[in-house]
């Protein structure tokens, strides 16, 4: 995996992790307005980041894509458990 791609993916992973952590916090603190504002702010950043990554590299999810081309890209891109591309083992 090239460096730019890995950086973009890592940045999205960080934002999505922040969302997950806020999500669990809000489950038990559903009236915390500050946390909800923080969630909303992070979600809009993550949405942009995700769209940008998918435009440049490959789809991360399937159901929200409506301009699919042949061949079906989902099977072409790497799976998260593979590390060949980014300096791992051959």
């Amino acid at each position, binding site marked *: 995996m090239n460096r730019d791609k890995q950086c973009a993916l890592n940045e999205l992973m960080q934002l*999505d992790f922040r969302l997950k952590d806020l999500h*669990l916090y809000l*489950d038990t603190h559903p009236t915390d307005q500050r946390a909800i504002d923080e969630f909303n702010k992070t979600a809009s950043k993550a949405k942009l980041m995700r769209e940008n990554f998918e435009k440049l590299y490959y789809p991360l999810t399937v159901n929200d894509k409506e301009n699919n081309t042949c061949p079906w890209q989902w099977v072409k891109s790497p799976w*998260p458990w593979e590390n060949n591309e980014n*300096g791992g*083992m051959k």
Partner: protein
Amino acid sequence: MWNYDKKLQYPINIKNTNPKLAQFIISQYGGPDGELAASLRYLSQRYSMPFEIARAALNDIGTEELAHLEMIGTIVHQLTKNLTPEQVKAQGFGPYYVDHGLGVYPQSAAGTPFTAAALQVKGDLIADLNENLAAEQKARATYENILKLADDPDVIEPIKFLRAREIVHYQRFGEVLRKAEEMINHKKKYGIGLKDC
């Protein structure tokens, strides 16, 4: 239902194989305090949870555990990739290899296949939440044992992340339990429960 996101929750890129370490870490895949047991425990308990924040916490923590299961599977896979027969023999990986090759099988470090006997679904709010608090602590302790045996930073970093998540989940379950006790006390005192909060 679930949607799949083609990425891990935390990055894992292991450069050096280490089948011995993989055999320890596989316990968090299919062992008694592992991520498979955790996800099944919470996702099965959620149906009988009688109030809103309990249903949400169990559903959403159970979902995060599935992402952790994927991380552990990834670590085991990357630690055992492309092993030669010599490496398999030299690192004590032979017994596992004979049964599962380089596949990732849900078992404990001692080789016991995954069993639902390691978890409980009692259909009782207080019993289930206390089970979950203990489960998070047992998982935390297991990760700490693994950290004592691991010397590869590529493995240590994701394991530290997973250890930290156990502590966050413990915190969330504690909040749900306190709310549950509050509601039960309110019911005892006034004869009515808070319907939903």
